[in-house]
């Protein structure tokens, strides 16, 4: 069995082995192997190519951009997604605009350990995918499975554009697979994680598993829910979503991030504008509450969507 976290480590090991242009840079990623051990052993295995950085997110990302200009393919680890706010300017104004302005590609991968875990609190739990998706020039990946964690990270390194790789900390240890995948769905294609005819849940990352659990529960009552894993939220595979809604006529978008302008808003806006006629009922969305992510599990459990709250929404949708 291999975990989501091990898959991320394995992908980085393969990227380093396959491509001399790849290096890893970030806080404590070297000998220590990273705060989550996502780079464990890599500094030893690839001497001089896995470097500890100072606590300087702006410079970490700025330097990766400079290295990319020179033809390298850096993988940057932010210790937590939440700290990428400090490197925000380099990401959205330097990395995201480089190719458009100068025709020089910016193949950097920025790994963001994202999402909530029990007791992590307001500054170690954030889901920042929507922020980065709003800016032109960035690819935003949100893998929900061990297989995608591996193959999408490899693809992130191969892509000639800056990729924001939102890996979910909750899945690091919880999620296991038999083996690493040998082939992969290309970036930009969503995956139908579960087929169904009665309603479509569109989601991504950790919420995929809450959604699947919810679909399972309602299946016992005879409801067949289709669950779509977006995989990457930019590009966002509108076609697959529309095709599913065409089959089910009902849409529930679920995300762990904040509501305003999040993935669920974009998904519903696209379906409403491009597939209005396909909807047999008002689309619905479910997100985290519009407050910082609370520290205590009692609050955190209510702050983000769960299989239970998704089921409540889905029942409303099905009876609409």
């Amino acid at each position, binding site marked *: 069995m291999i975990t989501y976290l091990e898959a991320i480590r394995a992908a980085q090991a393969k990227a380093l082995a396959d491509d001399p242009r790849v290096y890893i840079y970030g*806080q*404590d990623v*070297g*000998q*220590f192997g990273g*705060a989550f051990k996502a780079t464990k052993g890599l500094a030893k295995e690839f001497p001089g190519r896995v470097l*500890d*950085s*100072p*606590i*300087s997110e*702006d410079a970490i990302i700025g330097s990766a951009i400079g290295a990319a200009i020179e033809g390298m393919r850096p993988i940057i680890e932010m210790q*937590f997604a*939440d*700290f990428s*706010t*400090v490197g925000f300017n380099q990401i959205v104004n330097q990395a995201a605009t480089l190719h458009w302005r100068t025709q020089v590609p910016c193949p950097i991968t920025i790994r963001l350990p994202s999402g909530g875990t*029990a*007791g*992590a*609190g*307001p*500054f*170690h739990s954030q889901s920042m995918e929507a922020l980065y998706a709003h800016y032109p020039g960035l690819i935003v990946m949100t893998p929900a499975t061990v297989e995608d964690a591996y193959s999408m990270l490899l693809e992130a390194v191969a892509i000639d554009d800056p990729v924001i790789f939102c890996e979910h900390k909750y899945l690091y240890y919880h999620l296991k697979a038999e083996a690493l995948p040998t082939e992969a769905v290309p970036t930009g294609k969503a995956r139908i994680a579960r087929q169904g005819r009665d309603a479509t849940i569109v989601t991504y990352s950790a919420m995929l598993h809450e959604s699947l659990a919810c679909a399972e529960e309602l299946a016992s009552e005879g409801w067949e829910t289709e669950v779509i894993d977006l995989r990457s939220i930019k590009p966002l595979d509108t076609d697959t979503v529309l095709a599913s809604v065409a089959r089910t006529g009902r849409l529930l978008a679920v995300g762990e991030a904040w*509501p*305003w302008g*999040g993935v*669920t*808003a974009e998904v519903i806006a696209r379906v409403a504008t491009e597939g209005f006629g396909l909807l047999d009922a008002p689309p619905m*969305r*479910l*997100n*985290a*509450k*519009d*407050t*910082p992510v*609370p*520290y*205590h*599990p*009692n*609050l955190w*459990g*209510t702050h983000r969507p769960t299989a239970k709250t998704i089921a409540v929404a889905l029942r409303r949708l099905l009876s609409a």
Partner: protein
Amino acid sequence: MVQAAAVLTASADIYDFKANFLAAYRWMLLARVAEEKIAALYRGGKITGGVFLGKGQEALSAATGIALRKGDIFAPLIRDQAGRLAFGETLLDCTRTYMGSRLGPMRGRDGNVHRGRPREGLMAMISHLGAMLPVVAGALLARRFRGQEGAVGAVSLGDGATSTGAFHEGLNLAAVEKLPLVLVVANNQYAYSTPTSRQFACEDLVDKAIGYGVAGHSVDGTDLGACLEVLHRAVESARSGGGPQLVVASLLRLVGHGEHDDAGYVDPKLRQTSLGADCLELAESRLLRERWADASELQELQEKIQQQVEEAVATTLREPLPDPNTEDWCSLADQRLCEGHGE
């Protein structure tokens, strides 16, 4: 840049050094005992989330808290249990925040070291390193606007945090405004696992002072006496219009970065150097050497403190946890402007 040693006697008459030393020792011991209890609760699964301790840094932290007075401002960081207590934070604020009590200052919304009472001068750190420095600068600016001179703001940072843009912008702003700000850098030789050799290239962090046009002080962070002297002097020169003061203390953290971490990356040789000394043990032996206390008194103190800690924990354990149903789930002070669409 003044060396601590040079002034141990020089300024010993300014205030009652012995009284301060004794008081600081008590806070250090209380912090040490409290943190050991917190660690035990963590291992017992009674605490969710991270636990970050200040073992080995109590002398510097306590000296910072003691050098400040009521009306001053303090922005502690993750290794400041001792300084928090010395500044006036109650033990209950600590246990309640770690255990998520609804009655704590953070009400279960934030946890562990992310606590404070900003209106009482105790800033509640956000995680982003360096970010509290400009906040304290702004608070001091506010005092100036209101003509309330004489207050000092102290900010704790680690060696790693000196690499942040926030450190630079904040210290520079404080220097331009010549604010009464004392920046206390605990150089414990590592930022999580990262040694200072990967963090900065200057000979000594205190060399940064001149580049900001602020005063610099170096101190042995394992020596409570030296810490008391240097922090006292730094705080008083800030208070008397000397502008920002950069204090750099050398020491080692004697625990992991957090309780999840065994600190296996720390160079064993370093532990053998004077940096690896336990400031609490050193303080205790000096107390005895100077005959400021005898063994039985210390024994008594130890027991009183143990009891105090047990009581705080027991109280906290009886208290209500946060309840999602009574939460307002509104981020704003002006509740009229809250909206809950799409949740």
